Every structure is written in structure tokens, then in C-alpha cells.
């Protein structure tokens, strides 16, 4: 259906169900229970899952398919954010033109950077993209202050023209982003069932729809002859050259597409919360999307989404846990042991989340180069082997007959 084969369509349905039912899935614990801190079903976090999912899907189209490791993808996200905020400042508070413009601008920017960077490959490509991204970051921080508002970050003010909207609302505050006139991005509907409370937020569902679109497009790209060509570039670019084929248009197209995904993510980010700062373009931000993609499984369809969700979820949860919470958990132990365990875990929680992430990432790269998806496949295989093992065992009995 929709040009997908059965397996991909099922995968798409799973992603669609997960995205659309996220407010339920992510809120399994009643609001007042002690476990409510593991709930992730509030709009801000869900939006982050989805936006970074889009970002990682786009990065995966470049890295997963062609093997070109870009260390500067955050630049496109940053450019997307800035253009979206400028639309809010100049045009009006509707998010659709803002998102459209951020995709286009990021695409053009990616075309420019990709055209230069893709002349080299391997580590040189990584360093070129890194250099471009750092250049954009440094410029956004210093000289381009009239456009980017430097360190403070670009924000909406009451003096913005907003020709299709109003500079200020009736009560004199800055207007908020909307999807349709009257339908605000931040508006939400709370559904209370017994002790549970589920929040349905307009912004989240907008992001989720874009995620589904992004995911669908990436499936189509993976299965298309174009995707096949990109995989060929990854496995042996030299052989492609020998057959007389110029691979650069293909890699450039992949680069621009993934840049546009990053722009979309940036535009959505600005639509949810209309500000943009230079730190979104820093190379550590580019490193983060690399982590997400690798952790989930580069080159797989679902991997980047999983990786983005995984990192953002645990970042949120780990940062919330503090020593008191830990003491609560281990209260059943003898006091000395309890203190000992809390002391050991202490560096890894709260502000130490990045330490946990770094260790986790290293373990994945060392032992599980295919990421979470490969881990899942291995576990599935183990079970299958077991059942197959019993099957062959049964078969082995039969031939005697």
C-alpha cells in the first residue's frame, strides 16, 4: 500500500501507531503514583522525541546509506530555526510558512556546503563539514548578530512588523504560534481517566504528522533505485567510478535531502517554542545526532527514531533522578549498603547523564555496531534458534520412520 511492500507497510503502521498513541503509551503510570516520574507523555518531551527523530532520520539518509559521516549537521537545524523565527517576526504567527521556509533555506544551505564538502570523502569529508558548521556557529555568534541576535538568541518582540498578523495581542503580549487561525500550537486537551491523565497537544500532533511523512519518505528512498545507488556508493565508490558513473550528483542529493530534514526539525523546533540560538549549531549538537543514529542503528529504517527516543527519554529521566530518589529506591537495604550503592550510582545520574551516555555509546560502538536494532535482531534470532533447534530435534526423529 502507498507503494510500500507488506513488511515496510507493517513497520510504517507500527511507527504511525506509536506516534499517534504516544500520549497513552508514554503515560503508563497514574499521575499521583511514585512511578509518575517515568512518564514521558507531556507535550514538551514528546515534541522533542519526534523532532529529534526527524533529525536523525534525515542524518541516517546520508550516513546510513552513503557512509559519509557528517559532523556538521546541526548547522542545518540551526539555519532552519533562524529562518522560521524570522518568518514569525516578519510575516505572521502561522507555522506552516515558517516550516516551509526553514526546509527550503536549509536545503539551499546544504546544497552550498555539500557541493564543496563532497569533493572529498572519508575523514576529510567529516572535517570539512565540521569546519563549515563551526564557521556558521562562530559567525552566528559574532558578526551575524543583526540576523541571529548573537549570544542572546533570536526572539520575538513586540516591535516585530508581522505584516499578516499583529505585532501584539489585544492585551499587549507577544502573539503565540498557531496552526490555523485560532488553533494555537500550545493548546492541549487533557483527558482524565480515573487516576490517569493524558495530554493531547496540537504541536505534538503536528510534529507527529511530519514525522510520519518524513518516515514514509525515508522508506521510499531506502527502497528506491536512488537508495540502491547510495548503498553502492557506501560499499565501493571506486568501482562505481570505474564503471563510468559519476556518483557526486547522488551523494549531493542525499546530502541536500538530509539537510532539508534537519531544516524541518529546526523549523518545528522554532514553531513549538519561537526562539533560536547559536548553540543549536555547535558541533556538540551535531555529535548528538550522530550518537542517536549510531545508538539506534545506522542504515536501518527504524533505528534513528529509536535512538532519538532512547537518548531524549533517558536524558530526561536520568536528569530528574537525584540522591533522594535513589535512597528511596534502595531503602529496603541495610543502611551501609544503601549508602554505598547510592554513592556508586551518584556520578551517573542527574548532571552525570552525559557520562552514562558516553559509556553507553562506547559499548554500542564496540560490541553492537548495528545499534539497538541489531541488538533486537540478535535477541530475536536467539529465540528463533531455540525454537528452530527444537524443530530440527523433532525433524531428526522423523527420518527414522
Amino acid at each position, binding site marked *: 500500500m502507498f507503494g510500500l511492500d507488506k513488511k515496510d507497510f507493517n513497520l510504517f503502521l507500527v511507527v504511525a501507531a506509536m506516534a499517534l498513541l504516544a500520549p497513552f503509551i508514554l503515560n503508563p503510570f497514574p499521575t499521583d503514583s511514585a512511578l509518575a516520574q517515568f512518564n514521558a507523555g507531556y507535550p514538551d518531551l514528546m515534541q522533542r522525541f519526534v523532532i529529534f527523530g526527524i533529525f536523525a532520520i534525515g542524518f541516517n539518509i546520508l550516513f546510513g546509506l552513503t557512509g559519509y559521516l557528517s559532523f556538521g549537521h546541526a548547522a542545518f537545524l540551526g539555519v532552519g530555526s533562524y529562518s522560521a523565527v524570522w518568518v514569525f517576526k516578519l510575516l505572521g504567527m502561522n507555522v506552516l510558512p515558517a516550516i516551509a521556509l526553514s526546509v527550503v533555506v536549509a536545503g539551499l544551505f546544504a546544497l552550498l556546503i555539500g557541493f*564543496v564538502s563532497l569533493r572529498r570523502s572519508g575523514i*576529510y569529508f567529516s572535517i*570539512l563539514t565540521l569546519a563549515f558548521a563551526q564557521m556558521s556557529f*562562530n559567525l552566528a*555568534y559574532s558578526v551575524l548578530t543583526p540576523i541571529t541576535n548573537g549570544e542572546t538568541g533570536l526572539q520575538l518582540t513586540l516591535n516585530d512588523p508581522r505584516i499578516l498578523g499583529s505585532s501584539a495581542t489585544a492585551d499587549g503580549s507577544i502573539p503565540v504560534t498557531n496552526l490555523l487561525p485560532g488553533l494555537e500550537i500550545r493548546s492541549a486537551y487533557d483527558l482524565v481517566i480515573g487516576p490517569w491523565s493524558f495530554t493531547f497537544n496540537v504541536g505534538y500532533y503536528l510534529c507527529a504528522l511530519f514525522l510520519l511523512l518524513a518516515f514514509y519518505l525515508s522508506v521510499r528512498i531506502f527502497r528506491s533505485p536512488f537508495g540502491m545507488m547510495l548503498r553502492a556508493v557506501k560499499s565501493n565508490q571506486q568501482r562505481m567510478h570505474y564503471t563510468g558513473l559519476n556518483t557526486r550528483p547522488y551523494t549531493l542529493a542525499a546530502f541536500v535531502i538530509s539537510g532539508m530534514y534537519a531544516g524541518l526539525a529546526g523549523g518545528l523546533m522554532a514553531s513549538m517554542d519561537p526562539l533560536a540560538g547559536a548553540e543549536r549549531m555547535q558541533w556538540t549538537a551535531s555529535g548528538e545526532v*550522530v550518537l542517536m543514529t549510531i545508538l539506534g542503528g545506522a542504515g536501518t529504517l527504524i533505528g534513528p527514531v529509536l535512538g532519538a527516543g532512547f537518548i531524549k527519554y533517558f536524558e530526561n529521566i536520568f536528569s530528574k533522578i537525584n540522591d533522594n530518589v535513589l535512597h528511596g529506591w534502595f531503602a529496603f537495604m541495610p543502611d551501609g549498603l544503601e549508602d554505598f550503592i547510592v554513592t556508586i550510582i551518584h556520578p551517573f545520574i542527574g548532571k552525570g547523564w552525559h557520562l552514562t551516555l558516553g*559509556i553507553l555509546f*562506547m559499548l554500542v560502538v564496540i560490541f553492537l555496531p548495528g545499534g539497538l536494532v541489531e541488538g533486537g535482531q540478535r535477541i530475536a534470532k536467539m529465540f528463533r534458534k531455540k525454537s528452530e533447534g527444537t524443530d530440527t530435534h523433532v525433524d531428526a526423529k522423523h527420518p527414522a520412520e
Partner: protein
Amino acid sequence: MDAIILQILNGLDKGSAYALIALGLTLIFGTLGVVNFAHGALFMIGAFCAVTVQRILTLSYEVVDETQTDFLGNPLKVKVPYVESWFGPETGAAIIDWAVPLAILFAIPIMIAIGFIMERGLIKHFYKRPHADQILVTFGLAIVLQEVIKYFYGANPIPTGAPDVFRGSFDFGVLLGFDPNAIIYPYWRLVYFSFAALIIGGVFAFLQFTTFGMVVRAGMADRETVGLLGINIDRRFTIMFGLAAAVAGLAGVMYAPINSPNYHMGMDFLVLSFVVVVVGGMGSLPGAVLAGFLLGILESFASMNEVKSILPGIDQIIIYLVAIIILLTRPRGLMGRKGVMED
């Protein structure tokens, strides 16, 4: 003229740091063929060695000083560092004052040990894996090292002073016949530059004039043949990794008074050092040193007000700009050899 000399001098100390880190990176890349994204973290650990030594030396105990009283009239408690009570106040104070140079002695064994552990424990397993995997795993390691340092030392920069003798500035202007105060240069930066020159010279002499260095160079040219001659080249390469870690660490120790160490200084320098390596030519030691100084000086020229008024913001991007131009016009870098990392 004096402005130009001043900018060249200003570029030298940053250039020295770039050159030292890039030298280590190139050593590792040339011998083991590994792209080490954790090298900046080694530089940072070196700087924190200086902090640690300073902290150890200033460990104190409290004594009640009967001659002085605090504002409540009680006898004042004075902190006395152990070092001062052992060696007498004057020698003790001098030792504390020279904490940073003393940290060199402390840093060398530590950095070599860290280098050995890193190579044997982690990087050894990545020789056969693609460069992208090496980048990723060392990137992860860099995050971990950085966070460990942040856990123990906090997120704020820790001021670490140079010895008092080097606190002042040297007036080059008088020496060269310009007006006094035209070219002023802090002593410590002069020390840093000489130190860097010494280390760079030492590494080159070691590679050029010792048998060990000769074998390593032979191994860089053709690892397999050297191995066939019955030489355990892997062990020597491990030692070179330790040496490269020590070079980065020493660069960090001596840099501590110039810029107060903080946990992300490694990452800041790493990005630039990679650019330096690429500009110099992947795998070329003289190239790395040359490019390090060149880019350091270029950066300081670009930050002159005269240049900035013509091309605003150029000081922020000059290094990257140069790298992009070099990579596109001279793919092998300034002094790169043929056949190293070409694809």
C-alpha cells in the same frame, strides 16, 4: 612593523599548543593508522594534572596562631600547607609557587600510563575496523573522559598560576629598537613557546637519531616488512602512543597558566587540531608542526582591528576558511605524502 611582530609573537603560543597536539595526533595516525578524537581530552587531562599538583601541594592543616586574633578576639586559625611545615616556610612557598613546572614530572608517567591503557585496552581492537568506527569510539571516550573530569573538578575554570618569576611581561620593543611598551609579551608565553620548541625538537631527534626511532619510522613506511624482520613493531607503536599522549599532556600542563583549565578545553582544541593536521597533511610530522604555527599566527593576524574592520568576523573563521581552501586545492595538505588516506 612593531604591530606585525607583536601579532607573530601572539600567534606563537596558541600555535605552539596547536602544533603539539597536532604532532601527537599525527604520531598516532602515522604509526597506528587510528584517527584519535580523544586526543583533545588528553590535552585537557594534562592541564588538570597541573591543577591536581597545585591542589596536592597546597593541602593544609590548621594551626592556632596566638599572635593574631580574628575580629571576635579569638586566636586566629591559620592554614599551613604541609609542604611549608616540612621544608620550612620559604622553600615550601617556593615549591607551591612552582607547582605548574613541577606538574610536568607528575604528568609524564601519568600520561604515558593513560596512553598505554587506552591503546591496549581500547584502540587495539579498532585497527581493523573502518575509520568511521575509530572516530566514533574515540569520540565516545572523549565524552567519558570529559565528564569524569567534570565530576571531580566541577564545571568552572580553575585558575592555575605560573611561578611569580614569570608573572610579568617582557618588553621586546626595547630589544628590537622600537619604543618601549610597543611590543609587550608575557614571560610565561615565552616559556611556553620555548618549551614547545624543545618538545618538538626532542620528538624529532628521538625519531631521527635513535635506533628505536629509526625502527618506528621504518614501521610507519611499511609495517609488514618491519614485522617480517622479526621486530615486535606493535609494542613499539604502543610506546609511541604513550609518547603522543605525553606530548599532548605536557602541552596541557604548560597551557594551564595561559588559560584556566576547564573540562571542555580539550574539545575546543581538538576541532582546531584536526583542522591543523589536515592542513599540514595527514601523516606528515613536519607538516603538522608547520601548520600549527602557521594557523596560530594567521589567527592572531586576523584578530587585528585593522583586518577586522575590513572583513568583520574574519578572526572567528580564518582557520576553517584556510582549511577548506587547502583541502579543496591541495588535497594532500601542505606537506602530505602520497598515498596516505587518499580516497
